[in-house]
């Protein structure tokens, strides 16, 4: 039986104390790891050297079309070079909180453009290079898996709220 209405959620969270928020936080941490693993995989291609990409006619040049020359699938995957881009990656969670009866929590993975200046140019493209939506593309790949983790970890707790 699902929880319906913010009053019910708020009342039960008060009753059960901080344990619920701890469970939400640990679940979101699992989600962030799922996202991180997928993003790392998608930005670690080592199947082409820079010389090979040049010989292929710069596959990510936008003059070849919105997805460049298809040399891998999905087209937005990124090759690993110096490792700077991977080192710029950060993952974390926004602590669960209750505001006006609404539960808020979050998990994120981001690239820090102060650590890797070229990160934004890869993700959003340039006047010559296609955008490669690596982060959102990776998230779409693991969305179902992440939802399943949330459902599995929070379902029992949610049901307990209703039945007591």
């Amino acid at each position, binding site marked *: 039986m699902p929880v319906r209405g913010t009053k019910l959620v708020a009342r039960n969270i008060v009753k059960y104390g901080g344990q619920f928020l701890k469970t939400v936080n640990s679940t979101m941490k699992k989600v962030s790891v799922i996202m991180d693993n997928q993003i790392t995989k998608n930005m670690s291609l080592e199947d082409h050297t820079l010389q090979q990409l040049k010989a292929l006619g710069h596959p990510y040049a936008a003059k070849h079309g*919105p997805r460049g020359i298809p040399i891998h699938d999905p087209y937005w995957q990124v090759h690993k070079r110096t490792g700077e881009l991977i080192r710029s990656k950060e993952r974390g969670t926004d602590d669960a909180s209750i505001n006006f009866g609404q539960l808020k929590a979050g998990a994120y993975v981001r690239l820090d453009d102060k650590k890797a200046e070229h990160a*934004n140019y890869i993700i959003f*493209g340039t006047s010559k290079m296609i955008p490669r*939506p690596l982060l*959102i593309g990776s998230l779409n790949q693991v969305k179902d898996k992440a939802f399943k983790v949330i459902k599995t970890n929070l379902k029992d707790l949610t049901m307990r709220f209703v039945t007591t």
Partner: protein
Amino acid sequence: MTAEEKVLEKLRNVLIADSDINGYVEGRVYLDHPSTIGEPKYPAISFSITQSIADVSVPTQSSIEIQIDIWLDSTGYSSQDLLILHRKIRSLLHRANLSDTTLDLLAQMTLESLVGPVMYEEDTKLLHLPLRYKVVAI
């Protein structure tokens, strides 16, 4: 025309019809990336489809993710102009229902999903602001 082509055509028509936007771009709302155009001129707006998924349960429906790029020559414009154009585009497209019978578009809902950073290209001296929109078209 494919669903994607219809959507881009509609978005282009909406942006060009706005006098503030057209005051900047003078008709240069490109349906493709500017590098596919011989000698692109700026200011300009261009579209790129980053994802397109046909809905299996509704054969004529497509969910499309579009990047809308605003390009300005930094020698004549500032990042403030980028933000003015962004505000205008958002007011026209965010949460808009852009049905158009002349394009055989029954329903097209658009939603702004992301506003990228203001970027600068040293070699071309271009200012660039990428926006992402989700579009559901039938």
